[in-house]
């Protein structure tokens, strides 16, 4: 299963704005209610978007309950990205790492927790990782899930630690056991392609990474990232395409639509007009290939 040409992201719901902390703070408060989030998802759905990519923040639980209960947005697919780091960072600061891990595992049957912890005790983290992924996905019960992505705070950490086995096992678990599309967010696209494709040997893994005209967070250089997108080894979702609105909208979008190797674009907005304008333009472009559901 592959992704649509345009994906609704969720930075606006979580109060993330790379260009304006004041706007970020007001968005964080604005989207405190499920109804306001559902309204924005509805604007994207009406504009033709059929993918919603989100981090596993607890605030989505009532949103998804309402979507399922009222049978909203038929044909919309959901792609959770995990883990939501702030949730764990805050909990760990208050309760400690072991308590946080164990309290999360209470959601899963003991028959599966004990072997996973036993494997962890001998240094195999993959069982624990799988259970934690399952716990994170509990909020998606009843929803059509398209993919599961590992967020860059963990993926890039594992890249830094050169933990190839864990990356490979995550990919295989999501693909073979959950039977959805695995993917990785990264701020190091060229290095991620090298590690996933050349070192581990994955075939066309999905990567979600920054690509924008201003070169915002394209490391180690914009040229390297553009080349890495175009190299054909990975499937790519471009993000931060407007660099949080710091640059002119139309030019920013043209740049990404004309870049090679961009399979999908993800963006978030809290404006109905912006969502419709951008989605229309992306669908009108012939540069990105149409991805059937």
């Amino acid at each position, binding site marked *: 299963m592959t992704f649509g040409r345009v994906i609704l992201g969720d930075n606006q719901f979580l109060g993330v704005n790379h260009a304006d902390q004041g706007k970020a703070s007001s968005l964080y408060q604005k989207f405190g209610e499920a109804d306001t989030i559902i309204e924005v998802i509805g604007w994207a759905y009406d504009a033709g978007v059929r993918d919603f990519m989100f981090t596993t923040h607890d605030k989505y639980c009532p949103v998804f309950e309402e979507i399922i209960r009222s049978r909203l947005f038929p044909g919309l697919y959901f792609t959770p990205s995990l883990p939501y780091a702030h949730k764990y960072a805050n909990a760990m600061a208050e309760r400690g790492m072991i308590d946080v891990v164990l309290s999360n595992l209470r959601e899963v049957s003991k028959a599966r927790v004990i072997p996973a912890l036993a494997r962890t005790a001998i240094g195999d983290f993959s069982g624990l990782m799988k259970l934690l992924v399952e716990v994170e996905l509990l909020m998606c019960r009843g929803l059509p899930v398209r993919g599961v992505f590992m967020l860059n705070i963990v993926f890039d950490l594992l890249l830094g*630690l*050169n933990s190839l086995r864990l990356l490979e096992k995550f990919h295989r678990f999501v693909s073979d056991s959950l039977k959805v599309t695995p993917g990785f967010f990264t701020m190091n696209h060229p290095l991620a392609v090298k590690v996933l494709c050349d070192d581990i040997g994955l075939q066309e893994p999905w990567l979600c990474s920054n690509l924008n005209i201003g070169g915002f967070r394209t490391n180690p250089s914009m040229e390297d990232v553009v080349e890495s997108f175009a190299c054909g080894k990975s499937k790519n979702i471009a993000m931060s395409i407007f660099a949080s609105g710091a640059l002119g909208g139309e030019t920013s979008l043209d740049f990404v639509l004309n870049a090679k190797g961009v399979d999908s674009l993800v963006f978030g907005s809290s404006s109905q007009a912006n969502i419709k304008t951008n989605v229309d333009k992306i669908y009108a472009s012939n540069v990105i290939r149409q991805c059937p559901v």
Partner: protein
Amino acid sequence: MTILIVGGGKMGLSHLAIAGRIAGPANVAVCEANRVIRFLYNRLNVRTYPSIAEAIASHRGIKGAIIATPTPSHYAISKMFLEQSIPCFIEKPLTLRSTRSKELMNLATSGKVYTQMGFVLRYVSTFSRLRDLVRTGALGAVRSYRARMNGNVITKPDTKSWRTDFSAGGGCLNEYGPHLIDLCRFIFGDVMTLQGAEKGHVHSTRADDQMAFNWIHASGVAGEVKLDWCDTSKRKSVIQFDIDFEQARVRGDNSALHFDFHGDNYLSPEERSQISEPLTPPKVSFYLRGEEYTLQLEDFIGRCMGHNYRVDHEFGLENGAQLQDGLEVDLLIESISKKAGLQ
């Protein structure tokens, strides 16, 4: 050749991942007293040592130490490395007593050992730009400024953790203070006079949850500073500066600067446009959690290894903080805490 990370907690893990990509995975190791944590690192193929003495004995070629342990241990650990003439990168704050901070600084100076403080926010492009604006006088002299650091760290009463115990290094002043106090010094220069300080409590009884103080810099600039780690409107900690220059009012945070030029400013439209052009963060060799975390280690490890690891060869080459800066911040925290009645 090894870069040794002392302390395998959250900061140590972050430093390890970045240092491993800068210096190469084979050139980093972790020193951690906790056996379970050492075991976990070993399973990730990371070399570990249970003590500094053992690490030094095993590796005569330790080129630098990154100290990411709780603050009360900084003094003893740093001293061991400095006595061996091993360069140190020390997380903030330097120590909990300025007399000890001074001792470390003297040790580094007399032994001519390179040291760097983990005042990471100096490498944030917006704050670095504010420093340039003040130094170059591009917007005229500074009349005054306000600085804020707000976050949502303490959300309920806590009478057990060290984090809410001032004497153990906890509290808002100890947690947020070093970052913002150092940034104020970095941008506006040395502080000359602390005029007043007032603490506030929301959930904590053994430490401050809020702190407000005002001071005069050696340059004559007056600053008003507020810290608050109980601000529920914030998802993560945010620093904001509001600076009144002769030609403009500038608001700046971790992400962007906003310029409001005074009606009678003498700048040409081209100059105004150039000054207010949006900033793009510098490029780094490996991104984990913000360019600033990589830049500070590219600089430190570069000095240790005698090699330039930067991919951005222009941004903030002199932004690294020294032990002298760590000492100055510790002295100011002591003064503020006394004035506010925490000591």
